[in-house]
């Protein structure tokens, strides 16, 4: 089992190295297959691990394996340690399974791109990094995986590196993630200083005497989670990250990397439980984010941005769940969200690919006429997102909402916010669906899809990208792209049936040894929450139908609100003013008053000094015998003194 776990971790790394070393000696397709096969092997290995673990009794289900210890300082030991337990196995399955589907999809999506090999190398690297994160047996390896996924995200967002927007987005993502990394590192320092081992689970025994220290550690961890999962206040990088290719958005910014924050909180829940205020803060941030993201999604015009904000919102739900202590529900929602969000992104990718890179929803309409399969899958994904039974989202989301009931005024407030979020989800999701798929094809769609024009596949309507072969697009995309979408659609339907909270909860039971939930909603609470959630979801769908499909009413115009939402609540502007401008001013000041005169000046001074020294030394080399004789005489003089004095 341990071997299988190591194979699961290392297969994608091997693929990435192989692709890097072979370079242009293999064809682009071959690189794609190498990458896909490695992720498939990871998934197979993860299944093996899961089977073996399931065969054991619940209290036995925790195995650690250390490859070697590389840090030994007194009582502090850190090794390359992986941990196999219910939580890590669940994440392994999700990451490798959904990862495999998305990488397979990329074979068709990225076909023809000049730098396809680099893409698949990066994807393999990413899968390895994410697996390292979830399989980590101590906080250090987790941090290593954390950093590597940030790196992979940077590399993949900026994949089309001739586009300045992509480069800027990649930098923004990386810098904001770095803030989270810093807070996490500080948290680790505090743990180390208090003699903690960083291995799971020993790291969680921060003693009761260290009251406010535990809060600091929890805050540090929360900072990292917030940055990685794009929650308030570090959420601004996620919409920009949509500059990357669509499969990247699906894998990294929907299904896996952004959920790493949730995983972290669930994994270190013991620390959070010792700092209850911070845990409440996490729940509050999740709720605030889900509301804010839902609102902003209402006015977005880019398909991928809508789905991105939807991701932000759904992760808010997961944070809410983890913050309330409903770890099983939060992880369950993580799983179902991976299915339907990846589905939505990939289906959107099919549309974008067919429309030669166009992402503006306003130009689209009636795509369903030419792409019926895509339309159905997208509809399934949207229904799952809103949480309509019997689709996946219903089962997972409502448990979280129900967990908020009956614990106090703060949690009741969160409950209300979560319900409002459901309404908003219905509106924006189906706004997207109704604008793009049903009805008569718009002129743009007519031109590109209906008559099978030769499209030069260029992702993104703005700016250039790599060379891309021409394909004919008529109707649905190639099989390699539609197959994963279909698989995900099936999962989005049945994925939720694995847990129906009051009656049947294998997921929560599976996770219980690792993360015992703090609250268990009663059956009535579950029923109540579900009822409200479904009703509000349907109401949202209805509003969207009225506004965007049947066009009975006009979309209300409220200039101030519109501006506020379009500027994403002015977060970008605020951060620019508060952080970016002062930094630039400081850098400028330092350059003018310190760098140039002192550092550069000193270099010039040193160079000048050496040159002068050389000049004076050169004058001794006269080439005349007499000068050298003088030198001998002078040394004689000196030596005589030395011999006399020293003896």
């Amino acid at each position, binding site marked *: 089992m341990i071997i299988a776990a190591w194979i699961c971790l290392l297969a994608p790394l091997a693929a990435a190295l192989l692709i890097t070393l072979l370079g242009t000696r293999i064809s682009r397709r071959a690189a794609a297959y190498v990458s896909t096969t490695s992720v498939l092997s990871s998934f197979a290995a993860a299944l093996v691990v899961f089977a073996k673990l399931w065969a054991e009794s619940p209290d036995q289900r925790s195995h650690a394996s250390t490859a070697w210890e590389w840090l030994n300082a007194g009582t502090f030991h850190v090794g390359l340690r992986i941990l196999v337990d219910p939580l890590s196995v669940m994440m392994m399955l999700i990451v490798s399974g959904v990862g495999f589907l998305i990488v397979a999809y990329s074979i068709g999506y990225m076909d023809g791109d000049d730098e396809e090999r680099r893409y698949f190398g990066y994807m393999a690297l990413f899968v390895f990094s994410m697996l390292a994160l979830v399989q980590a047996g101590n906080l250090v390896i987790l941090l290593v995986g954390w950093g590597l996924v940030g790196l992979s995200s940077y590399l993949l967002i900026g994949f089309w590196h001739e586009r300045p927007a992509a480069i800027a987005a990649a930098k923004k993502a990386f810098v904001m993630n770095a803030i989270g990394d810093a807070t996490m590192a500080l948290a680790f320092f505090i743990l180390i200083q208090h003699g903690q081992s960083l291995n799971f689970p020993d790291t969680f025994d921060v003693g009761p005497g260290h009251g406010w220290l535990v809060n600091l550690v929890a805050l540090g961890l929360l900072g990292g989670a917030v940055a990685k999962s794009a929650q308030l206040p570090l959420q601004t990088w996620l919409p920009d990250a949509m500059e990357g290719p669509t499969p990247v958005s699906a894998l990294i910014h929907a299904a896996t990397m952004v959920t790493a924050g949730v995983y972290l909180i669930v994994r270190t829940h013991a620390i959070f439980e010792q700092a209850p205020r911070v845990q409440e803060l996490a729940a509050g941030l999740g709720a605030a984010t889900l509301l804010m993201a839902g609102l902003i999604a209402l006015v977005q015009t880019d398909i991928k941005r809508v789905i991105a904000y939807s991701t932000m919102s759904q992760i808010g739900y997961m944070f809410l769940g983890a913050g309330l202590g409903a770890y099983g529900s939060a992880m369950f929602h993580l799983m179902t969200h991976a299915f339907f969000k990846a589905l939505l992104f990939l289906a959107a990718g099919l549309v974008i690919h067919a429309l030669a890179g166009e992402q503006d929803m306003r130009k689209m309409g009636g795509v369903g006429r030419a792409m019926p399969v895509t339309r159905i899958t997208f509809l399934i994904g949207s229904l799952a997102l809103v949480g309509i039974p019997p689709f996946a989202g219903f089962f997972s989301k409502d448990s979280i909402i129900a967990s908020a009931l009956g614990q106090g005024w703060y949690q009741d407030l969160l409950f209300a916010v979560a319900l409002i979020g459901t309404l908003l989800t219905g509106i924006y999701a189906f706004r997207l669906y109704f604008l793009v798929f049903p009805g008569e094809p718009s002129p743009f769609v007519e031109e590109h899809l209906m008559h099978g024009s030769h499209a030069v596949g260029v992702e993104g309507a703005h700016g250039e990208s790599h060379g891309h072969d021409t394909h004919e697009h008529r109707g649905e995309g190639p099989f390699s792209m539609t197959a994963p979408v279909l698989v995900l659609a099936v999962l989005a339907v049945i994925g939720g049936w694995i847990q129906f909270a009051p009656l049947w909860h294998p997921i929560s039971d599976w996770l219980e040894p690792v993360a015992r939930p703090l609250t268990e909603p009663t059956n009535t609470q579950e029923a109540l929450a579900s009822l409200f959630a479904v009703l509000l979801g349907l109401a949202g769908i209805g509003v969207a139908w009225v506004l965007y499909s049947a066009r009975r009413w006009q979309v209300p115009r409220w200039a101030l609100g519109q501006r506020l939402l379009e500027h994403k609540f002015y977060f970008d502007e605020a951060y620019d003013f508060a952080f970016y401008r002062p930094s630039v001013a400081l850098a400028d000041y330092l350059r003018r008053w310190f760098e140039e005169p002192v550092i550069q000046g000193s270099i010039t001074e040193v160079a000048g000094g050496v040159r002068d020294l050389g000049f004076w030394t050169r004058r001794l080399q006269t080439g*005349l015998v007499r*000068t050298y004789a*003088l030198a001998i*005489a*002078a040394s*004689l*003089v000196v030596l*005589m*003194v030395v011999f*006399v004095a020293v003896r």
Partner: protein
Amino acid sequence: MGNVVVWAVWVVAAFSCLASGIAVISFTNPFYSALALIGNLASLAVLYLLLSAEFVAAGQVLVYAGAVMVMFLFVTAYLGGHADAPWAGGPSWQQFGAVLAAGAILVEVIVVIGLKAGGRLSHEAKIDSNFGSPQQIGRLFLTDHLLAFEITSVVLLVAAVGAVILGAHSRRSGTTAGVIHEREVRARS
């Protein structure tokens, strides 16, 4: 009475020694310098005699003044007396440095000897009449200092060989030296 005579002789010899030494380095004409050196050597021989080194004094006059200086004079005559201004040429600090170095050496030697030897210089050893005589020198050369004797003879042999080689006329054409010689002769004409 004997003391006064010896003192007088010493003063004359020492003075002429120093004067001729300065003369050697001051004359512009090398011929005069060589002649001054002969005078120097002669005065030194006198001083040697005062120090009971008869054989050495004889050797000085015969070998040094007789053979070496004659050779010098031959070469000077062969070359002609190019004169050069003694204090000219070289880098600016050469003269100043030279005077400084020479002065420093002088001062240091005197000081060192004064410091280290001090009062002991006044007490010389007692010697017999055999001291410095050819017998004693011969005996020492062939017993205690045989190695020095032999090595000195080898040195002289090497010098003789070197002189022959240096003095030999190289073939004017055909060899590298001859070619260079031809080229230089043509350049200067």
